[in-house]
């Protein structure tokens, strides 16, 4: 182990925060679904992969700017999430938690291998000329698509936060996640809230897919990498906690990036997984979670 110099450390801190913003957006979607329905969505990464492919094909086939494709990836994943909830997840709302997890595993097996069938396992890269630039500030160099992804991710997260806090529909979602019985008595239609929550959660991860596509490879199994990181973020921040997902995303992004500067290759992932198990064992409520189960 060699100690990196200060510029490298600063560089990895900046990179970590940028990546952390994207992790936050992914985790916000996951934690929203968990908070409202108590369902751990294993298929979250598969939906992200779909978002990436939407952006990839719109650019490759029609030359549409990757960020413009947010206008398609967000609504189409919202609808896909809503339909998934309406026709599949809603069937097992009262089933044991491990069966719910297995169901979302089935959904993810289906989506990913369907994608494999039509798009092959090839690793694709989105080559957008104007995004090849890097921004240099002093000694730090950051890639433009990561900066854009971070900005969009934060804007979307703030918009969602505002929606949940101020808009009636959003308040209904929060009410349902905090007090199921009570929200029923004040006339909230739980079924509709579930559709909406799953749709929004999926739309978040679809947007994250679009934002990630310009600087990552695109392949049917790419979601698996992000979904496990998202689990770590959500558990770290506290299952169901919005602020927890936001802060957790930044922490994991930082830990990964700074860790990579100190330790080689696979070890940083190793550290993140051990962190995951340790939090589950010793602080299952996470940093911002409610203490009860």
């Amino acid at each position, binding site marked *: 182990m060699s100690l990196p110099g200060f510029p490298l450390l600063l560089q990895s801190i900046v990179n970590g925060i940028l990546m952390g913003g994207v992790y936050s957006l992914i985790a916000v979607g996951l934690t929203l679904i968990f908070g409202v329905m108590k369902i*751990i969505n294993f298929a979250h990464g598969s939906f992200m992969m779909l978002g990436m492919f939407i952006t990839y094909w719109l650019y490759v086939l029609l030359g549409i700017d990757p960020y413009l494709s947010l206008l398609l990836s967000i609504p189409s994943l919202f609808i896909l999430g809503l339909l998934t909830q309406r026709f*599949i997840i809603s*069937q*097992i709302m009262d*089933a*044991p*938690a*491990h*069966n*719910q*997890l*297995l*169901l979302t*595993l*089935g*959904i*993810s*097996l*289906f*989506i*990913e*291998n*369907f994608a*494999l*069938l039509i798009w092959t*396992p090839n690793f694709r890269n989105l080559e957008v000329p104007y995004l090849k630039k890097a921004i240099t500030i002093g000694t730090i160099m950051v890639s433009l698509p990561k900066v854009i992804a971070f900005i969009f991710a934060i804007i979307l997260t703030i918009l969602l936060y505002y929606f949940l806090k101020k808009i009636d529909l959003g308040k209904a979602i929060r009410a349902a996640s905090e007090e199921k019985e009570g929200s029923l008595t004040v006339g909230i239609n739980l079924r509709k809230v579930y559709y909406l929550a799953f749709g929004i959660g999926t739309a978040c991860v679809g947007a994250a897919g679009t934002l990630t596509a310009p600087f990552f490879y695109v392949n049917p199994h790419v979601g*698996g990498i992000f979904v*496990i990181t998202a*689990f770590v973020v959500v558990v770290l921040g506290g299952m169901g906690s919005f602020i927890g997902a936001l802060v957790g995303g930044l922490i994991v992004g930082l830990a990964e990036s700074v860790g990579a500067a100190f330790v*080689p*290759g*696979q*070890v940083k*992932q*190793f550290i993140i*997984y*051990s962190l*995951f*198990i340790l939090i*589950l*064992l*010793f602080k*299952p409520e996470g940093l911002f979670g409610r203490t009860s189960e």
Partner: protein
Amino acid sequence: MSNKTKRSEKIFGIIILSAILLILPYLIGDYITYVTTMIFFFGYLGLAWNILGGYAGQFSFGHAAFFGVGAYTSTLLQIHGGVNPWIGMILAGIAGLLLGSFIGYLCFRYGLKGPYFALAMLALAEMLRLLAVEWMTLRYPLGISIPIKGDSFLDFQFKNKIPYYYICLFMMAGAIYLTHYIEQRKIGSYFKAIRENEDSAQALGINTFKYKLVAMAISSFLTAIGGTLYAQYYLIVEEESVFGVTISIAVLLGPIIGGAGTVFGPVLGGFILEFLSEMTRNLLGAYSGVHLMIYGIILIFVIIFLPHGILGGLQLAYRRISKGV
């Protein structure tokens, strides 16, 4: 019908079935023998998972951890220490058991349950896979090959694949017997009590921590032995194929679909999955992925419509009919 005749009929049935299974490889071609061997193999692994997941109700999403530890233990011992693979197999089982007891102790001691336990196991398997990548890939970039010694039972290597048929059959039969044995004893009812309601089981005076650990120990031991069998069949060990998420999923799909917490559910599930996987391979070529897509659809349907799996669903229906409800 008296109990005695019922019992002798049962024994007669088992003898006939064993006779058929024993001569089967000589009646069917190499290809069907291979498929049947795989059914036995995944049936065996499903049975191993079933003891912890099906009976004791602790769903592991990371049994590849034990499978991989088993495969690597016997293989590394064989290559670097010249340890006979049969002895290596037992040591592999012990290594799996130690790992299982360690992680089980931690998880159960701190009350990890349901999906949290499932995900912790997934993380464990991924951690071991990363360690294997870190430690093994540089030295063995193409995976670890077991030196070929030819046809020898003592070396656990056979030119012809038929002996593996018998080994897998034997191991599956052993696992079925063990499961049946557990089901008939008190320990089986303790497992089920924990699965149905852990707090009540604890209140009834069952040491739930201890019995969950016992289930974990048996399950991890058997799964690790399966890892050695896999290594000796393919004579190559590579981290993705033994520690990968695919193995963790393959191991649990059989029991879930066939019926978790039943003796023959994992075997039935293994049969259905292997059959489908071979069918799609034959129809659509060697293109991987299609069978997993179909597994996904089946899993969705089973969880929604048959949450106790095929045999579990049949058992419930049978009980309902015989009670006249």
